[in-house]
């Protein structure tokens, strides 16, 4: 076995390292900086150059080595390389080759380009380890420019009616993706501190984001008419959000595809936008690896594995510490995974 599934995480015996482990280990290879993949407490980390700043920001003092996309590293008897996963800036699939057999751990991924993350690259392999957060045929994403037009129209409409637009999105990845598609001509963009901290990290590493204004206790929230306010989902409906006066609220998430979830969130609008692959994306990604063996980690695993088997794959479910299983937690956590 090139990789094994242990209580600590996905393990490579040939190289004596773990990938995205959920318990502390000596050597951890990390696909991307979200909390359920990059956890604290490992002795040594390895990630792409682009994923490291956010990991340092989140995890503090860590011992971390970085590597460029496509660069082959020899670790023990394994050859390791990182390839773009298209999930968030810096995110990677990790390719592990041992004695001619190739396995790929894809972490979280999406195949459609978002104009910001390094676009997903299919990697040929024998075994592919895949998420399936949205592994049902009801999940289909519209092209990003269509969603962008919807969001900007909502913002412009609110601005014209004298309302603030409060948009809930996870601080790392989704928030910056949204910022990158907003039309700054419509009005000022205010950000919650949690998001602005990540913005600062990403701007430092060269990502182009529009100008934003951090919401601080002494900011006169009502002095910015027609503003769009970007906040973590948990801030919506809180006293923090009330300072902006009359406002329309919205979430951006793949779960917003489902009307029941949209209504449960009690936001005015739900925009369907995810950093995970939709049904067609999962299927095409898997096909392009050429792999016969598929291991699914989190999401609608039972259904998706059954579907893959019916399509002729040797598919199984592996239990991991990755999230995105529970929907309601994942309305916030979708972004975390």
């Amino acid at each position, binding site marked *: 076995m090139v990789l094994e599934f242990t209580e600590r995480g996905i393990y490579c015996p040939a190289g004596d390292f773990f990938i995205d482990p959920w318990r502390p280990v000596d050597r951890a290879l990390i696909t991307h900086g979200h909390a359920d993949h990059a956890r604290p407490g490992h002795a040594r980390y390895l990630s792409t150059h682009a994923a490291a700043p956010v990991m340092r920001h989140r995890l503090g003092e860590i011992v971390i080595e970085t590597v460029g996309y496509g660069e082959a590293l020899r670790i023990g008897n394994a050859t390791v390389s990182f390839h773009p996963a298209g999930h968030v800036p810096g995110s990677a699939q990790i390719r592990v080759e041992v004695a001619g057999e190739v396995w790929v751990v894809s972490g979280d991924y999406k195949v459609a380009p978002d104009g910001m993350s390094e676009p997903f690259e299919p990697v040929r392999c024998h075994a592919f380890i895949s998420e399936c957060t949205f592994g*049902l*045929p*009801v*999940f*289909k994403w519209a092209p990003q420019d269509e969603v962008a037009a919807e969001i900007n129209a909502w913002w412009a409409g609110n601005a014209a009616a004298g309302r603030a637009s409060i948009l809930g999105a996870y601080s790392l990845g989704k928030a910056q993706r949204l910022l990158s598609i907003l039309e700054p001509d419509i009005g000022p963009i205010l950000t919650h501190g949690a998001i602005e901290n990540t913005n600062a990290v990403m701007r430092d590493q060269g990502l182009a984001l529009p100008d934003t204004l951090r919401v601080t206790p002494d900011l006169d929230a009502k002095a910015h008419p027609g503003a769009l306010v970007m906040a973590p989902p948990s801030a919506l409906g809180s006293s923090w959000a009330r300072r902006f006066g009359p406002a329309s609220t919205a979430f951006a998430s793949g779960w917003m*595809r*489902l*009307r*029941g*979830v949209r*209504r*449960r969130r*009690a*936001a*005015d*609008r739900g925009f369907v936008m995810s950093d995970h692959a939709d049904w067609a994306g999962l299927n095409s990604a898997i096909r392009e690896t050429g792999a016969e063996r598929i291991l699914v980690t989190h999401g*609608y695993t039972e*259904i998706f594995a*059954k*579907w893959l088997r*019916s399509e002729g794959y040797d598919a199984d479910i592996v239990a991991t510490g990755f999230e995105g*299983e*529970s*929907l*309601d*937690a994942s309305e916030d956590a979708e972004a975390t995974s």
Partner: protein
Amino acid sequence: MKRFAALFQQVDQTTKINPKVAALAAYFREAPDDDRLWTVALFSGRRPRRAVTTTRLREWAAERAGIPLWLFEEAYPVVGDLAETIALILPPNTRETDLGLRHWINTLRGLSDVTEEERKPVVLDAWDQLPPVERFLFNKLITGGFRIGVSQKLMTRALAQATDRDEAELAHRLMGDWTPETTTWHELIVAEDAGANLSRPYPFYLAHQLDDGPEALGEPSDWRAEWKWDGIRGQLILRGGEHHVWSRGEELMTHRFPELARARDFVPDGTVLDGEILAFAGGQPLPFNALQKRIGRKTVPKALLRDAPVILYAYDLLEWQGQDMRDRPFAERRAQLDALLQSLPEDAPLRASPLIEFDSWADLAATRQNARDAHAEGLMLKRARSPYLSGRKKGDWWKWKLDPLTVDAVMIYAQQGHGRRANLFTDFTFAVWQGNDLVPFTKAYSGLTDAEFRQITGWVRKNTQARFGPVRQVTPEHVFEIAFEGIHESPRHKSGVALRFPRMSRWRHDKTVQEANTLDDLKEMLRQYG
């Protein structure tokens, strides 16, 4: 359909009342008569007859989407709505048309006249020319249950704004057995109302729950008390030599309760009574399960008429000698009602639900404790000078129910909910102990907070022992307090008992599974309260 779809989206995209009403009112001002008439019909619970079974719809949708049927069936509970699942799963439409709401309803009505093979191409063709939102609405028209966040009350308010008519009058006009086939926009909404529809009921007045006891209501002498019955709220209408029986849900029930026909022998034409339909024998109401056997039956076999005869226990007089009485004070209506019904013979299918005498709130509170003995579920309090309003309005009518009965039970099965509860485990089966076995005895769906449902959903996912279709058997670990209004014998249930209005009143984190109640405890409750 685009106009209707735009209306739906405006209404669906806000949780606030005023923008919803404004969107509806604008639609009612602008839409063509046929479309707005159908819109009123849909939002008041009327829909075209179902022309295609849901089984066929699923098969056709899966086939069109190029996926196996089992995969469709797995996706459905995640989405929680069949019409939506189909709309989401189909490939994008290949062409686009803009035919009105009426066109699509007529298309569906036309399907009743053709064979199933001929229906399929019509439905597939519709799917192929409707974009996702319109497709969802088209599917809703087929599958029914048009609940999209617009109550009849909200719709009526918008209609009043759009037509400059009185809301209460419109509410009254919209009652009864009209359909868009039997009336027109003009007749229903615009024309002078000659009271042409003799069967039309009045909008029901609904009480609010009294949570904190009656002391805050003021002087006891300003109030009247009655038992709160556990039957079917109904209006009996005697006009033009005919009688009609309406449920609160505006369902015509005349033929389900043939006993009430004899009311014409005792009460003059031009009378409308509001009351509770109850199974009744030996001078007192029977438990609800006797009446339950009559529900859902369009015709009633003789044996059932004998075992569970019904009467109308009347508590209000809405029309008398052809005059609308609703503006008169309750005390006056009630006195007239008592005068009308007091001298009827024993076998008349009508009685006045007795008023309960009381001098003080403490007095009444003591009486309330005896509600179960009277086969009632608590008390009703009505302000003596109150008019008969429409809908649920706070202030004049209160229901003061008994505290529910409770048992502590173990959760053993879980299933996902629908609609806004899709993808959450919200429907549970509970068990009590019989020796070392857990015997299921009730299901419950409500009573927990959203946060608790999320918590239990995460737990169910991790503690599933077996799956039976959509049902998951879970590790018996959690104890819930189940509250219910009544208990009766039921040979259809493994436990031998059935509960009335069961719900989860508390999650007993403090109790172990061993501390849950037993079947013997339930049987004892059955003996006491059944």
